[in-house]
């Protein structure tokens, strides 16, 4: 197969000054979507959201006052701490979407994101294009966070929308009016931290297996350690070692819920939970940027 010779015409298309993180972000989403388990988990999450919406709609058709009935019934069963469809209800829902959806999805999406680029010399091609390390990291992280938000905040928003649409009273509407904004920022903060942490670990290990093992340690071992330390020292702030505990406290705080009010003293203080997350984000960011800058001057 011969090369084309002199009749070749120079391509005249103008190049834009669009930042390089834009195609990096689109490429990252496409790459994530290629993973069968990422697709399944995202679809499962959205299906759960639609399922809850459908259920609320149907129950609302049959019993427009189902909220009060549910509250009274659970009040009787739990002697006073019944299910109330307010911000607390949405905090309980985070157990459905954060633990079984957000954490596995972050791992599945990001466990080999930067590591594979490092292993396969793709970074060399990117940085010679040239893409700056910050542009590269911005594109990857934005896509990563957007994906996590779609799979977690998306279903919340659907449920909230159905709740508002079928709201029995102005008082109920007022109770949940600011839930989506609060949850949006809480999940954004958690997703951002998670995305940076996953990328930092993969950029250090450059191995999918080691990354997953480290996350098992981070999510399970550290959580267990936090619980044990709490039991030994009786200091709830020891639970700060648990990423899930920190995530729960952040969601509760932004939803305006004081967890100590509910008789749950095992929770870390909001200031420490936020500090942990910010610390993880900063350290992760510096680890990734250091790894990338060693490979690029621009």
């Amino acid at each position: 197969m011969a090369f084309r010779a002199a009749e070749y015409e120079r391509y005249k298309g103008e190049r834009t000054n669009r930042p390089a993180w834009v195609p990096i972000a689109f490429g990252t989403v496409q790459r994530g979507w290629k993973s069968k388990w990422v697709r399944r988990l995202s679809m499962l999450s959205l299906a759960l959201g639609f399922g809850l919406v459908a259920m609320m709609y149907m129950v609302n058709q049959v019993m427009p006052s189902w909220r009060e009935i549910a509250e009274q019934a659970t009040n009787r069963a739990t002697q006073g701490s019944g299910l109330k469809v307010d911000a607390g209800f949405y905090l309980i829902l985070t157990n459905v979407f954060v633990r079984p959806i957000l954490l596995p999805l972050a791992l599945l999406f990001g466990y080999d994101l930067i590591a594979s680029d490092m292993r396969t010399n793709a970074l060399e091609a990117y940085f010679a294009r040239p893409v700056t390390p910050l542009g590269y990291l911005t594109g990857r992280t934005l896509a990563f966070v957007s994906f996590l938000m779609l799979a977690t905040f998306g279903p919340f928003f659907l449920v909230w929308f159905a709740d508002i649409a079928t709201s029995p009273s102005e008082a109920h509407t007022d109770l949940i009016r600011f839930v989506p904004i609060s949850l949006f920022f809480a999940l954004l903060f958690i997703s951002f931290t998670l995305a940076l942490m996953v990328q930092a670990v993969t950029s250090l290990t450059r191995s999918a297996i080691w990354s997953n093992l480290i996350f098992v340690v981070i999510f399970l071992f550290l959580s267990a350690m936090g619980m044990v330390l709490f039991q030994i020292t009786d200091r709830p702030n020891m639970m700060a070692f648990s990423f899930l505990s920190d995530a729960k406290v952040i969601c509760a705080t932004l939803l305006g819920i004081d967890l100590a009010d509910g008789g749950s003293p095992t929770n870390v203080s909001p200031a420490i939970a936020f500090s942990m997350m910010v610390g993880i984000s900063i350290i992760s960011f510096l680890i990734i940027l250091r790894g990338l800058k060693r490979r690029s001057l621009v």
Partner: protein
Amino acid sequence: MSVAPALRCENLSRWYGEVQGLAGLTVTIEHGIVGLLGPNGSGKSTLMRLLTGQIKANRGWVEIYGQRIVPGTYEIFRRVGHAPGEDVHFETDRAVDFLRFMAALGGDSTSQAKDRAEKALDRVGMLVKAGVKLNAMSKGMRQRIKIAQALLFEPDLLLLDEPLNGMDPVSRRSTMNLVREWAGLGRTVIMASHVLHEVEGVTDRMLMLHHGRLLAEGRLTEIRELIDMKPRRASIRGENLRVLAAELLAQELVIGLDFGADGLLNLDTRNLPALLDRLQEAGIHGQIHSLEIDDQELEMVYDLLVGGSAR
């Protein structure tokens, strides 16, 4: 086209810990094709990475078309195309997707990226393979895709790191033609290789690196003269080799000889062309069955330039 030289390096140095990647390289390349010669580990790829801003110099500086490369430099790299030496497996699978993605990174809109990718594929004769996955391609084909990637934005300075590795003879010739054509358009090509005759096939100008240092700079013809002065060894098998050996000694075509195992006759000569003429005559008469000439030209050049002590 800018009047500034395509490339200027001044005392350019880079260490990897205690290992010297490049040491005090000072060179100016105006335009045209320049071969960058050196064995593995000589600093060729380090120089390529320094020129594309992928690593930072520990000392010295680089200017591309008059613009010094410093952290934050961005625009000048739009005039540079780079085909890296290492094999690269990208996240996009098909050749055209990979090139579209790289074009998008360079600032193309979606439709422009597609056009540009197809142009570049056409340029290297790979348009018919546009839909083939990169991991299903031979090494030679992937090399051509890498070259297409480097050509995407029609760079004024084209950096090719070992571009002929893994290519079949037809592709090698085509690539060499492409390099010559590219330089013929007034652009500059720096082609790194560890094989002398690959560089010789496209240019007479070369930079020779050794252990990160510039060992020689100039015309390959001068190197060729040096090689021709150096004794070369030809090894032959055949019949009546003792008679032939005596005859060659008498004609002063060889300066030394010895018989190896299995009847192999090793001949040392300072005049390889004349010896080959004589051996060709003997071959015609069926006296010689096989002939081998040492293929260590680059090593020989290094021996000549560093006095045989550096390696």
